[in-house]
């Protein structure tokens, strides 16, 4: 384990990102940088645009721009198909997963970064090994467990499954962020008479804000997007989450593309907004710990 990598502050990494090259506006740079970037942006953004066009233009229109704008499709999915309920369910699962993952990852990450205890290496290896367990292969045994616990058709089964599958990577990420906070800060607070717990809450936790944002958003996005667990564990429509609702829209409304697109926009808006805010923390977080941790 490259502890030297874990300890590196994100700020330093950022400075190194542009190794002494000044932007020059020559033809080579345009060909090498801007043309491929523009092409890739088209590939990325056109599908989003196409969905928005379908969601906003009236049924029967084939115009490539959403004009005249109508919100009838949103009214259909939100009120008639039940996306209002799906949205609330997904938000509950996402928020609880975020909460549990953040707290447990904070505890585990702190233990990994600050203590050398017997079994630490084993714990690390176990966390990495879990990354090779495909969730799709766990459907059957998890279904049996949740049935035994009486959690089938309960949103708690999704909260638990999403937390468990996201936790290992979250802990590794979080330990990178904790290691980046100098131990001297904590030490100084303890010399001033704080207990270690108080020192943690008073001086370490505030500095872990970027880490908590990265880990929490990561957990939220994964919980919001999870489809297979929700499909397997939930069969009552009142407890459907957005991806399950969307999959039924794909199946049943395959002629009504307006409704499908509007449902897609409802599904996309929260995660894309969260992502836009956190993507820079994500890159720093991974370079601070995950890839080489």
């Amino acid at each position, binding site marked *: 384990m490259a502890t030297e990598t874990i300890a590196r502050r994100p700020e330093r990494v950022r400075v*190194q990102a542009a*190794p002494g090259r000044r932007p020059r506006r020559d033809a080579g740079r345009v060909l090498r940088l801007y043309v491929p970037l523009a092409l*890739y942006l088209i590939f*990325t953004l056109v599908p989003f645009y196409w969905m928005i066009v379908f969601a906003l233009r009236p049924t029967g229109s084939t115009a490539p721009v959403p004009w005249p704008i109508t919100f009838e499709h949103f009214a259909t999915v939100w009120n008639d198909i039940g996306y209002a309920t799906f949205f609330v369910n997904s938000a509950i699962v996402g928020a609880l997963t975020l909460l549990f993952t953040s707290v447990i990852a904070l505890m585990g990450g702190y233990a990994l970064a600050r203590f050398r205890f017997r079994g630490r290496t084993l714990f690390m290896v176990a966390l990495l090994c879990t990354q090779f367990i495909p969730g*799709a292969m766990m459907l*059957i045994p998890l279904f049996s467990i949740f049935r035994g616990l009486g959690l089938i058709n309960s949103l708690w089964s999704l909260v638990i499954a999403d937390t468990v599958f996201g936790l290992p990577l979250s802990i590794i990420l979080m330990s990178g962020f904790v290691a980046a906070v100098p131990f001297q800060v904590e030490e100084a607070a303890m010399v001033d008479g704080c207990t270690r717990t108080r020192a943690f809450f008073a001086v370490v936790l505030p500095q872990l804000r970027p880490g908590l944002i990265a880990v929490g958003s990561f957990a939220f996005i994964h919980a919001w997007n999870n489809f297979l667990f929700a499909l397997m564990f939930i069969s009552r429509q009142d407890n459907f989450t957005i991806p399950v609702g969307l999959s039924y829209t794909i199946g049943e409304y395959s002629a009504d*593309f307006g409704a499908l697109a509007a449902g897609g926009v409802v599904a996309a808006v929260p995660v894309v907004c969260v992502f836009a805010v956190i993507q820079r923390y994500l890159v720093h977080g991974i370079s601070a710990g995950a890839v080489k941790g």
Partner: protein
Amino acid sequence: MASTGTAVAGGRPRALRWAPYLLISPTVLLIAVFLVYPIGSVLYYSLQHYNLTKPWANGFAGLANFREMLFEDPLFWTSLGFTAKWVVAEIGLQLVLGLALALIVNESFIGRGLARAMVFSPWAVSGVLTTGIWILLYNPTTGIVRYLGAPEAAVLGNPDTVFGALVLTELWRGVPFFAILLLAGLQGIPGELYEAAAVDGAGRTRRFLHVTLPHLRDAIVLATLLRSVWEFNNVDLIYTLTGGGPAQVTTTLPLYVAQRAIDSKDFGYGSALTTAGFVILLFCSLLYLRLSRFGADHKG
């Protein structure tokens, strides 16, 4: 058993001895109950006849499930073949495109933050939503494919075009995370190395081959491995976009397991398929780590 840092030595060693164990206990508990135990129970179920829709026939099966899988179920073998084709195609293309994308957004230019946010954004989109979006694009009457001179037949219903359509769709969502992982690796390369190489007269290509690639080696190995497991596991997209069709030509092994579990509730046979999947995945991962000499000191 001493903790890191000097301060701890003068602190409260007895309390601190169990502190790390207390801190990791929720994680250990959750992993044990919801990951380790289920893997054990898969092995157990794979030796049972266990079908929720036929409770009267449940009971010990011995190796019957495995016998059926290996000798009487051609779909097991075709799904395995398609899984390999799917993972290799996706990972190969994602590596090339993801590396190119990471190198581009690692340059400094005006609007870099916005460009990064935009090109990375499909990562946050779920497999089901990706399906929803690309169905709109692929639809022969309303989709964007009609501007690109696509044949009139449905792209997804044609066994000749469905693989390409599926791969392209997953690239849209898969390349960003590959690029994020590799960008993180790129940012760990000290800038002095590029300056030294430039002083020595190394051109752009040689700097890439002799500085960038060797330093990215571990990041590339880990990213390809993690993403391979991930693409292997990627049921959401295929389940909703093609459902494994047409005529089961796009059924991966995990999708087959999911169909057995969700649609026919045949847990015994599904567990045998799961066990086979675990063994194959474990074998391939270990082989790959061995062949790539991951973590070995190769930077010289």
